[in-house]
C-alpha cells in the first residue's frame, strides 16, 4: 500500500465548530487531493495541491480550506462545520506525469451533529 495516513479516521463534531483533517504521505509525490464521498455522488474533488503552498479549488470547495506547508502533509479545514459536510473524506496522492496512478488513503468518516 502507498504510504498515506489520514487522521483522524473517525470524528464526530458539532455544527459550527472548526475541524481539521490531516493527510500525511511518505511517497514524496507532488500532487495531493482531498475528495469527499457521498452516496449517489461518487467521489468529488474538494481541493488539490500541486506543490508546497500551491493549491487550487475543486468541484465542491465552498466551506473548505486547505494548506500544504510541507511536501508530505496536506490539511483540510472545515471552517465552520455544517451537517451537509457529514461525509467520508479521502486523501489521494499522485506523482507527475500523464496517466499516473492516484493512490488513496483509508478515509476519514466525519459526522457533524
Amino acid at each position: 500500500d502507498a504510504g498515506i495516513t489520514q487522521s483522524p479516521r473517525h470524528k464526530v463534531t458539532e455544527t459550527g465548530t472548526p475541524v481539521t483533517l490531516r493527510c500525511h504521505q511518505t511517497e514524496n509525490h507532488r500532487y495531493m487531493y482531498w475528495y469527499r464521498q457521498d452516496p449517489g455522488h461518487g467521489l468529488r474533488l474538494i481541493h488539490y495541491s500541486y506543490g508546497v503552498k500551491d493549491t487550487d479549488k475543486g468541484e465542491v470547495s465552498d466551506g473548505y480550506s486547505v494548506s500544504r506547508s510541507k511536501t508530505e502533509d496536506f490539511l483540510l479545514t472545515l471552517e465552520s462545520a455544517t451537517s451537509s459536510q457529514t461525509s467520508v473524506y479521502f486523501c489521494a496522492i499522485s506523482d507527475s506525469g500523464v496517466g499516473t496512478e492516484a493512490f488513496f488513503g483509508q478515509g476519514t468518516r466525519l459526522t457533524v451533529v
Partner: protein
Amino acid sequence: QQQVKQSPQSLIVQKGGISIINCAYENTAFDYFPWYQQFPGKGPALLIAIRPDVSEKKEGRFTISFNKSAKQFSLHIMDSQPGDSATYFCAASIGGAGSYQLTFGKGTKLSVIP
C-alpha cells in the same frame, strides 16, 4: 454538470458470469480513463486504466473497451467471483492540464452471488 456518467448504479451477477459497467464522458480533452475498485471501509484502488489511443486493454479477467467516437468506455469482468463484489468507479482526467485531477462517475455496486 456531470462530466462522467456511469451505469448501472447496482449490478447483481451470478458467479462465473460477465459483469459489464458502462461510462460516458463529455469532455473530449480527457486523455486518461482509469477504473477504481473500492471495498467497504477502504479507499479506492486502481484496477485498470486506458489511454484513448487504444480501443481495448485486458488485464486478467478485467477488460476495458474504449469507443472514442461515442465517448464511451466500459469495464468487463469475466468469470465474476464473489471476491469481486465491490463498488466500481470509472474516472477520467486531463493530463496536460498539470494537476491530473480525476473526475469520477457515481459508482456501481457489484454483487456477485454464488
